[in-house]
């Protein structure tokens, strides 16, 4: 068997498989076509276009499908939501729109009801903290720590090493903040900061867990 024959055989098998797979989904594809059409009507309706004729035709084409329960639950929900969107744009003073609104009500009566969205809102657990105050507090204490005289004449990398040791040993988050600021400063000035970043991450992981460390 030539290579071409093998490929032709494979082509036919794959095409056959895909055709059968799609055939099995025929019902869903048909339902999708209906919903997609209604989606187009709903979009046009929201843009203020006249949709009465298309909507009337859609109802006449799909009433039988609804009566014979050929829509799945999720499809019914999609249709109900779209009809809800369309309904809000119909002008009841126009007789044709009024008739379509009645048809929408009839579909609702048959169970095509939009899903109600329930939104639960939770109050903040605590009053908003003074973030700016916290930041300036960290910065002020960081400056005081660096200017305490303890680090006189030492290179910034060696000072950072000390600050990281304090960050690991002490509860005060100021050291973590200061180490982060120093690392960023060193990065901006072209220093290799990889090992320091790793140490800071380890400290963060240990202190706050993985979520806060990212």
């Amino acid at each position, binding site marked *: 068997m030539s290579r*071409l024959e093998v490929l032709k055989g*494979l082509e036919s098998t794959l095409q056959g*498989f*895909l055709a059968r*797979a799609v055939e099995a989904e025929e019902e869903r594809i048909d339902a999708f*076509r209906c919903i*997609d059409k209604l989606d187009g009507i709903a979009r046009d309706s929201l843009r203020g276009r006249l949709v009465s004729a298309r909507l009337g035709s859609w109802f006449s084409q799909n009433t039988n499908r609804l009566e014979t329960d050929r829509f799945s639950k999720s499809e019914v929900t999609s249709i109900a939501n779209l009809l809800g969107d369309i309904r809000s744009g119909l002008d009841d003073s126009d007789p044709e729109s009024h008739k379509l609104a009645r048809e929408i009500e009839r579909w609702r009566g048959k169970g095509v009801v939009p899903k109600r969205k329930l939104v639960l809102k939770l109050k903040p657990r605590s009053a908003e903290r003074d973030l700016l105050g916290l930041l300036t507090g960290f910065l002020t204490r960081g400056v005081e720590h660096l200017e305490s005289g303890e680090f006189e004449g030492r290179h910034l990398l060696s000072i950072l090493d000390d600050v990281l040791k304090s960050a690991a040993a002490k509860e005060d988050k100021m050291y973590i903040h200061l180490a982060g600021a120093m690392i960023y400063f060193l990065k901006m000035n072209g220093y290799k900061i990889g090992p320091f970043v790793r140490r800071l991450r380890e400290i963060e992981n240990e202190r706050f867990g993985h979520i806060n460390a990212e």
Partner: protein
Amino acid sequence: MLNETEKAYFKALLAIKEMDYSGAAGFFRFAENQFADAPEFRILKETTELLIAVKEEIFEIENERIEIEEILSDGQETEFR
């Protein structure tokens, strides 16, 4: 309104039905983020892509041309036996 990714999945199925496999592959790629974990989706997407690759290979073989170059030594015709 309908979810665009879900729409793309169905459009891919419609394209397969119409034997527009390249179109189907495009729709599958668009829908991939939402359906990547659905085995049925993966099978259809990968089968479509494989089919496109097979078709390309067949096209290449069928359109392969053998070029024969005749070489003349010193501009003289040579008699081949």
